[in-house]
């Protein structure tokens, strides 16, 4: 006997996604978080503009400096995004499923002719729509601010690199949205799931960078007589660090927005022979460089979404 289900699992998907997106757009929670992001973004870009104007030089990619230049005490625009995007994504997703339980709307919604797939995927898509709109707005805002204050338009490659950066940010936000939604299906109370997601966020942004050298030191101690052990330790440390999506995102933006970046790992002098130090890589080479990072984030997103999916499909409607 075939266990084929009747109809499409995606019946109602767009309805759910649009409703969720509309809800987010109207919710005070998201307004607050977005206000925070936009204010800090404008602040950091404004500071960067001042810095760029002061040290005007021969730079082929002046426009990309907008995103990466930091002026004390403000960090750069990209480090702000790396820090705040997870917050936006968590705010969008932490009560996606358990919120429906606590509002007692789940059984009513699922008694409509849709599958659970549509509800979960729709909620995820709804969150992604909002993130895409926010990131695009932010990017256009920063670019516009740059054109106005620097007085020069971005070049073709700068726009292409900017779009690639936008895509990387979108995937990064998707990972955190999937984290938040996974917690919202695994944990019954919205407050607890929010705390779980925020804890993970703190671990990866604050503690992970401190922790990886310690663990790497314990796992792969350096033997002073064997220089290769030092290389090994660094490889272990980097491998561990890259478990964190924040690190992956940081590396991806570094290579995309700083075309002179040649490698994201260790580089030996022999590998550099003949290279022009500081010369920019073509866009295709930069993309090839960050592809593992982007693919890693997409994989993490899929794994997390699958966890949420499986746990939601197995859940009893009755809370």
């Amino acid at each position, binding site marked *: 006997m075939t266990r084929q*289900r*009747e*109809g499409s699992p995606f*019946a*109602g998907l767009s*309805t*759910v996604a649009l*409703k969720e997106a509309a*809800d987010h757009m*109207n*919710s005070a929670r998201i307004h607050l978080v977005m206000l925070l992001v936009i204010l800090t973004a404008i602040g950091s870009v404004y500071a960067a503009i001042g810095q760029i104007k002061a040290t005007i030089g021969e730079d082929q990619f002046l426009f990309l400096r907008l995103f990466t230049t930091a002026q004390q005490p403000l960090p750069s625009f990209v480090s702000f995004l790396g820090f705040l995007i997870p917050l936006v994504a968590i705010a969008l997703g932490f009560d996606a499923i358990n919120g429906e339980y606590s*509002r*007692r*709307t789940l*059984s*009513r*919604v*699922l*008694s*409509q*002719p*849709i*599958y659970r797939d549509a509800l979960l995927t729709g909620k995820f898509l709804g969150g992604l729509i909002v993130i895409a709109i926010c990131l695009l707005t932010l990017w256009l805002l920063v670019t516009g601010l740059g054109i106005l204050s620097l007085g020069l338009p971005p070049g073709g490659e700068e726009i292409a690199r900017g779009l690639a950066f936008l895509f990387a940010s979108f995937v990064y936000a998707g990972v955190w949205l999937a984290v938040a939604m996974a917690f919202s299906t695994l944990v019954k109370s919205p407050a607890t799931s929010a705390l779980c997601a925020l804890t993970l966020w703190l671990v990866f942004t604050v503690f992970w960078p401190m922790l990886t050298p310690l663990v790497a030191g314990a796992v792969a101690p350096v033997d002073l007589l064997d220089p290769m052990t030092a290389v090994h330790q660094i490889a272990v440390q980097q491998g561990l660090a890259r478990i964190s999506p924040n690190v992956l995102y940081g590396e991806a933006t570094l290579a995309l927005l700083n075309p002179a970046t040649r490698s994201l790992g260790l580089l030996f002098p022999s590998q550099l022979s003949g290279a022009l130090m500081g010369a920019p890589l073509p866009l295709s080479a930069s993309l090839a460089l960050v592809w593992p990072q982007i693919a890693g984030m997409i994989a993490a997103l899929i794994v997390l979404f699958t966890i949420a999916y499986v746990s939601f499909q197995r859940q*009893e*409607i*009755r809370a």
Partner: protein
Amino acid sequence: MSAAEAPVIEAGGLTKRYGRFTAVDGIDLAVNKGEVFGLLGPNGSGKTTTILLLLGLTEPSAGTIRVLGLDPLRKPLSVKRRVGYLPDQIGFYDHLSAEENLAYSARLAGLASAEANRRISDALARVRLSDVRGKRVATYSRGMRQRLGLAEVLAKGSEIAILDEPTSGLDPQSTQELLELIRELAADGVTIVLSSHLLAMMQSLCDRVALFSRGRIGLIGKVADLTADVLGGTHVVEVEADGIDLAAVLKDAPHIAAVTPLRAGRWRVDADADVRADIAHRTVQAGGALSGMTIRQSSLDEVYARFFEGEDHDQAA
């Protein structure tokens, strides 16, 4: 058997286990078209689980279900398209208006927006929520929410309406309003499955009831038949008399099922007919002094109390 006669809901040996706990334990059930069917039982006796099984919202551990001739597990979308559900303690999206909540459900059900708007307006008018249709549901009272839930079932154009504890937590006036709406729904020919532990309500509303106890159906049938089966009679006479033993006096009287002493000089007589004249006659003949007699139809309350007598309710919860 023609389609009209075939039961619209059929369950056979339906079982649902949560781990080691058996919530529904092999129940058999058939609900006919146009019937108002009551699921009656204490909390935790398996009523809601049975409803979720009928809707395909949870998978049975064993047994078969057919709703409108379809298996809710294999054809969940077809079943859910034709069956309306009013959950226990219904929730709505509080930040949306009544209208927007119903519009969302209608879109999920795949209705075209013109058709949906027409149906929603009609449904809201029927449950008397037209005046507050644009208000956020957060401002609604419990009774209004239940009515809104019923409006959703109406707007869906359901052939079967499954209502889980529709009146729990409502004040008497809201309860009456809701019951009136349910009666109207039944008058339209919608098959209604209703769960409750409120017996008086079920007695006035239901054609047939099933008595649930610890995941099993103890009794199933018409309210009158159940009272006759469990209590042995449909009428209860309370007799006050002095100087006789009523049980002995009525020993060979017809129609009488049981004589229970209540306290000295007071008895309760269960009978399947109005036996007051006979009791009076026999009492006086035996030399007793009859001082009072009242009669009432036995209610589902008594069936319930008798049926669940000695049952450990904590076990069931």
